[in-house]
């Protein structure tokens, strides 16, 4: 079965306090040199049948209407080999 990954990230202009909290914790834990952290979501979809243009178009539609809220989030669809 083929795997398609949808990565969802807050748009760059949207404040991400969760990412900031992670970033602020890093020096205390001994991880230096990280200037910024943004937190997102990753969806792994196990696709039945071929991952052709039609299947990818459906996944794109799914991401746009459901997995991401495009008012605040961007998404990327990737086929994993």
């Amino acid at each position, binding site marked *: 079965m083929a795997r398609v990954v949808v990565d969802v990230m807050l748009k760059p*202009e949207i*404040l991400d*306090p*969760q990412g900031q*909290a992670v970033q602020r914790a890093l020096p205390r834990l001994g991880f230096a040199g990280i200037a910024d952290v943004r937190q997102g979501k990753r969806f792994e979809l196990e696709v039945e049948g071929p991952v052709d243009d039609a299947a990818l178009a459906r996944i794109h539609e799914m991401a746009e209407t*459901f*997995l991401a*809220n495009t*008012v*605040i989030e961007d998404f990327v669809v990737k086929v994993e080999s």
Partner: protein
Amino acid sequence: MTARIGVVTFPGTLDDQDALRAARLAGAEPVSLWHRDKDLKQVDAVVLAGGFSYGDYLRAGAISRFSPVMETIIEQAKAGMPVLGICNGFQILTEAHLLPGAMLRNNHLHFICRDQKLRVENTGTAWTSDYTEGQEIEVPLKNMDGRYVADERVLDELEAEGRVAFRYLDVNPNGSLRDIAGITNAAGNVVGLMPHPEHAVEPLVGTGKTDGLGFFTSILKKLVNA
């Protein structure tokens, strides 16, 4: 004759009983609606109450927005039926694109529960006619994902059209842009806000005031006079 006000229960809704009670105290006939039922039971208006429908999975309101009852509510709201979204209900309305913008995690990352002062800035909506323009009210606020965001163009449009219906006073509790606590659609029938008017309808509980009752008396007057 009175009006029928429906309140939807999703899995994880918490404040449906308070909303039904508020509708009854205002003189309306409260009607329970079920998330899996497309039938709105001939209600004249709908309240989407607070809580954590579907556990806020994915995003607050993101899954509820696709439930069977919402299909009918979205269709009817576009045709003019009054809809009030409180807290999680507001989140559902933005996810359904009945209201612009989106709700995100509070900027300080803490759950907040406090009595909150608001200014009523638009009394022309179906749910706010019993208030006076600029009136200050105090109702409970309790949420995790209460930070209202929209892009600058949408914010400017909302301000220009007077569609910022409620603004936080004294303190901005969650980082909402331009202190926005609630908004209305252009037609004034769909209103959403983060604070909870349904918890401030009797002197015994909530803030000790009845500042929230006006939402329910407003809609009742509108429906009965219609």
